[in-house]
């Protein structure tokens, strides 16, 4: 069984899984508690426009994805301030608009687009050493920002109006939050692909939320759950020869469903005890 570890692509994949889980644990927790899942989904899908542009210009599609999701994040920040009413539908516009631009770019690019599926659905088994180093550096930036600004980010996430009344630069902090989400998305595209990014960001964090009493605890639980799911997922995808990104997500979903089941069972048992007490 262990001989597969000798293949460097496999250890690379496992390492990439761990790095991705740390990103997801931290940024995913913010996304879940701030109810920014659809916002992040919009930014992630809009990045497809950049992938298409990358093909068309002949540059690295991931660079294009970074630019497009950055622009999408800026638009989102602006909408958050000035268009609270139609916010939800405007996110849909960004979401679909980015995808459409990507499709058109790919259509007008001569020849066919290699690895298009890798960008859409990810393939963690193709992660190279260079890419791992870039991932690690970006992750380091994310962790540094979150550690230094933890209390400030907590303040604006928890109670926007109050932190504004205390003179916190909440707009700057919100934009920073969006930038962190963009970095997370770009890191994760290689792992699970544009379409499944949002699942990896939200599912382990949602599982962790059920057990955590504070935000940093939630992050730690989410990281551990993520590492478990990605390791099991990579292993299963290798074993059964099925796509790695989707397998990781499915494992995360199973864990999430089990946690819900466990929570409701605990709740039911508690109710039974209360009923028994009341009867006697």
């Amino acid at each position, binding site marked *: 069984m262990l001989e597969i570890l000798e293949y460097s692509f496999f250890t690379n994949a496992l390492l990439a899984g761990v790095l991705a889980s740390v990103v997801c644990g931290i940024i995913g927790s913010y996304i879940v*508690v701030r109810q920014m899942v659809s916002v992040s989904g919009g930014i992630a899908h809009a990045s497809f426009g950049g992938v298409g542009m990358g093909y068309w210009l002949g540059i690295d599609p991931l660079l294009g994805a970074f630019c497009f999701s950055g622009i999408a994040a800026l638009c989102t920040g602006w909408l958050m301030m000035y268009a609270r009413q139609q916010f939800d539908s405007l996110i849909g516009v960004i979401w679909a608009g980015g995808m459409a631009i990507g499709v058109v770019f790919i259509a007008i690019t001569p020849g066919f687009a290699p690895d298009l599926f890798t960008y859409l659905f990810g393939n963690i088994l193709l992660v190279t050493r260079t890419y791992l180093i870039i991932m690690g550096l970006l992750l380091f930036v994310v962790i540094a920002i979150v550690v230094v*600004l933890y209390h*400030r980010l907590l303040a604006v996430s*928890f109670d926007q109006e109050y932190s504004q009344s*205390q*003179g916190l630069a909440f707009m700057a902090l919100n934009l920073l939050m969006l930038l962190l989400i963009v970095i997370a998305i770009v890191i994760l595209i290689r792992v699970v692909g544009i379409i499944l990014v949002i699942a990896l960001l939200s599912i382990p964090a949602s599982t962790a939320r059920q057990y955590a009493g504070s*935000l940093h605890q939630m992050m730690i639980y989410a990281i551990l759950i993520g590492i478990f799911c990605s390791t099991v997922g990579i292993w299963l995808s290798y074993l059964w020869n099925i796509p790695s990104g989707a397998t990781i997500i499915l494992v995360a979903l199973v864990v999430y469903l089990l946690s819900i089941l466990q929570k409701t069972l605990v709740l039911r048992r508690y109710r039974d005890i209360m009923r028994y007490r009341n009867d006697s």
Partner: protein
Amino acid sequence: MTRTSDEPGAITIEDPVILTENLSVSYEGHQVLEKVNLCVRKGDWYAIIGPNGGGKTTLIKAILGLISPGSGKIRVFGQDPKDVRERIGYVPQYQTFQYAFPIRVREVVFLGRMGRMKGLFQRYGAEDSRAVHEAMARMRIEHLADRSISTLSGGERQRTIIARALAGEPDLLLLDEPTVYVDDLSRDIFFSSLTRVRETCTVLLITHDISVVHAHVTKIACLNTRLFTHDSDQITDEMVAQSYGCPVDLITHGDIPHRVLERHNRKEADEC
């Protein structure tokens, strides 16, 4: 006796803590505050009463600099409200956060120290811990310190929010119906603990609870788009009728619960 503004040109030793001049605010063409002249001095306990939709919360938000006035001037500690935010404690009328947020009571109270943090890299220190501890003791929530707020009752949550405001050791407290969800004991403890900071802290209180007004405040005004002020802590029937726009029954505390009705003459009202 009721006037629509504070006496103009009164001689002052010190700058007022809050001063608004002809403050007007409107939302999408709908006038909410009209030419409000409010003057709160150091050490005042200033209560504002008024009907729903009268503009009380709007006034507080303008004083905090959360919304910008359509016209008129606001000065807090003689400065622009945005420059003195760390000296203001704020208890909002509605809990402006989600209950399900994973955060512990202690962490919420610590957020009250946030406004005092200078620079990006400053962290909470011993002084912050002391203030947080004191604020929690005052609101009797020390035993809840490590509980997640999603597990608290409504009143316990509200006491946490009040403790958050106290933790900042503010010079000015803006309280927007702070004790609506709070039981009588906690309410009394809250107000009497505030009495202890009376020398250092000025309070602007919005309330529908007239018994609180009678027991603690030094000045009172009614707000219904316009501000109707009065020098003393007496509520008169005229004031109430003017600001609510209709006769209102008020049941206040005292040895015998009594009512103030619009038809009462001035003398009777003063005897209350």
